[in-house]
């Protein structure tokens, strides 16, 4: 396990109290907390060398540009990409996926083409394709899921077919925690001449990730879920694909030359970065990557497997915990097949009530549809409660989660049948 004692010291928020109780932050799938190194990188930028980047001649601008581009290099290495020109900064993972839908999508998707998704996709990897399908007349197909929330690979073999132009799948489900067999799906897609987009919003922060091993063509993720600040998303794509894509948004920085009625796009990666970028937060994202590198992504993954095993054992012993059969856990039961994201329901109690009562005890979890309404429909529930872990979480905190759940059951349980 990681040395969580040491790690926790770097996260100022973890010593905060909530409602008179120690904060137990288990909402990491929504956004992670930030180490002081990242927070300081932002202040340091604004206190010492804040300036607009690119083409600035003065010293501050040189310094800001260098630091901004350095993060691009760090991210290139972090996901084992070949070339920093393949790294595009966006506002969040959602914007990265939309960039692909608007630019690559409109240029390449035609009526009758098929886009293959899974029913566990986050709205951000679903709605953009619905919009594209509506505009182009393409069709959306959905893979099937197994009982325990994994992709049924038989359905993948069936649905990924000659008309498939794109497969868009999450690396890790933000509801089930399922880690999907991306490389296998990539082979099926490529065999049909289709491209594969991976939504790495949950995967990249928690699993050692190599775009070569994933064999994907696009990878999108958000820095705020991996110790970085809000406001920075990343799109990686193969260079030749990016080169062939038309620009998305127009404006400053994304051009090479402009006349009154026409323009020439800039070279990669700036072609896709219109306007003043989120300079401070991109620089601080570099500090987040450095922090994760120091710990090592393999160690991060092992820590989460440990915590997951422990949580799974507690879920399995629900009767001991006084929850009877009321506690229903979704997703795979094998810690090697999943990340530290646990969605569950407690009898008839609405997830919002669970969330509220846990919050009153200092335990921050998420409750609701987790931007996966179609999946909730499939599960036949209005939503779930969801606890999710990261590098600073401990077994004691997992214990506290279950103690708090008992309390919720005590307050709200035994609802008369309605």
């Amino acid at each position, binding site marked *: 396990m990681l040395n969580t004692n040491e790690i926790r010291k770097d996260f100022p928020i973890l010593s905060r109290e909530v409602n008179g109780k120690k904060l137990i932050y288990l909402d990491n799938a929504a956004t992670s907390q930030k180490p002081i190194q990242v927070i300081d990188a932002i202040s340091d930028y604004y206190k010492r060398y804040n300036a607009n980047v690119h083409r600035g001649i003065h010293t501050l601008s040189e310094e800001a540009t260098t630091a901004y581009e350095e993060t691009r290099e760090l991210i290139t290495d972090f996901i084992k990409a070949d070339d920093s020109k393949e790294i595009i900064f966006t506002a969040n993972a959602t914007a990265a996926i939309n960039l692909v839908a608007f630019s690559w999508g409109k240029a390449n998707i035609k009526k009758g083409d098929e886009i293959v998704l899974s029913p566990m996709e986050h709205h951000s990897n679903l709605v953009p394709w619905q919009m594209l399908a509506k505009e182009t007349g393409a069709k959306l197909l959905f893979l099937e899921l197994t009982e325990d929330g994994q992709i049924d690979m038989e359905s993948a073999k069936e649905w990924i077919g000659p008309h498939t132009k794109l497969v868009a799948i999450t690396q890790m489900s933000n509801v089930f925690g399922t880690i999907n067999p991306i490389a296998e799906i990539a082979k099926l897609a490529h065999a049909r001449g289709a491209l594969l987009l991976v939504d790495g919003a949950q995967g990249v922060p928690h699993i050692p990730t190599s775009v070569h091993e994933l064999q994907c063509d696009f990878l999108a993720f958000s820095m705020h879920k991996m110790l970085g600040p809000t406001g920075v998303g990343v799109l990686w794509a193969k260079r030749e694909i990016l080169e062939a894509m038309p620009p998305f948004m127009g404006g400053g920085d994304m051009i090479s030359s402009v006349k009154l009625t026409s323009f020439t796009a800039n070279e990669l990666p700036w072609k896709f970065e219109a306007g003043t970028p989120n300079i401070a937060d991109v620089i601080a994202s570099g500090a987040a990557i450095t922090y994760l590198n120091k710990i090592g992504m393999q160690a991060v993954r092992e820590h989460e497997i440990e915590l997951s095993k422990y949580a799974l054992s507690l879920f399995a012993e629900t009767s001991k915990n006084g929850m009877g059969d009321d506690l229903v856990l979704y997703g795979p039961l094998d810690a090697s097949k999943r990340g530290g994201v646990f969605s569950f329901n407690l009898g008839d109690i*609405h*997830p*919002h009530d669970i969330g509220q009562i846990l919050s*009153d005890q200092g335990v921050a979890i998420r409750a609701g549809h987790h931007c996966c309404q179609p999946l909730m429909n499939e599960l036949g529930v209005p*939503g779930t409660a969801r606890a999710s872990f990261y590098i600073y979480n401990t077994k004691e905190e997992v214990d506290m989660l279950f103690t708090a759940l008992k309390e919720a059951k005590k*307050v*709200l349980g035994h609802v*008369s049948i*309605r």
Partner: protein
Amino acid sequence: MSLSDELYRETILDHYHHPRNRGVIEKPSTLVEGVNPLCGDELTLYLQVEDSKIKDIKLTAKGCSINTASGSMMTDAVLGQSIAEAQKIIDSFKHMMLESREKDVSLPENMEELEALQGVKKYPVRIKCAILPWNTLTQAIKNVSANNSEKSTKVEMS
């Protein structure tokens, strides 16, 4: 436990565990469905109006404690009231939940129980849970007033 005191008061929990006026009316004057897609709250409200009076009101619902308790209290509050009186109660309640910042708002007499729901105001995301039954009732009253025979009006919160 020291907590949730505001939100999960006795009164609310009581209505949550034992919701009043649960069920259906076979031939209601109107029937309205209310949904809040964001959190999955769903309810069906049956209203029986005679001589401009609420003769009967019933709810079936699937929602959180706040939604359930609010609906239950609402049925208690308006049952037997005139349409005009019910509308006044709705207005005061929504004012209390959405506008007023002070603690003490003037609810109609004998409606003090509804004050228990003020605790919800500390939790902005959940105000909609409390409001949904009331918006549904507003629509039901509109249907009746307009002599609207349509039996499946729908109210959606967003």
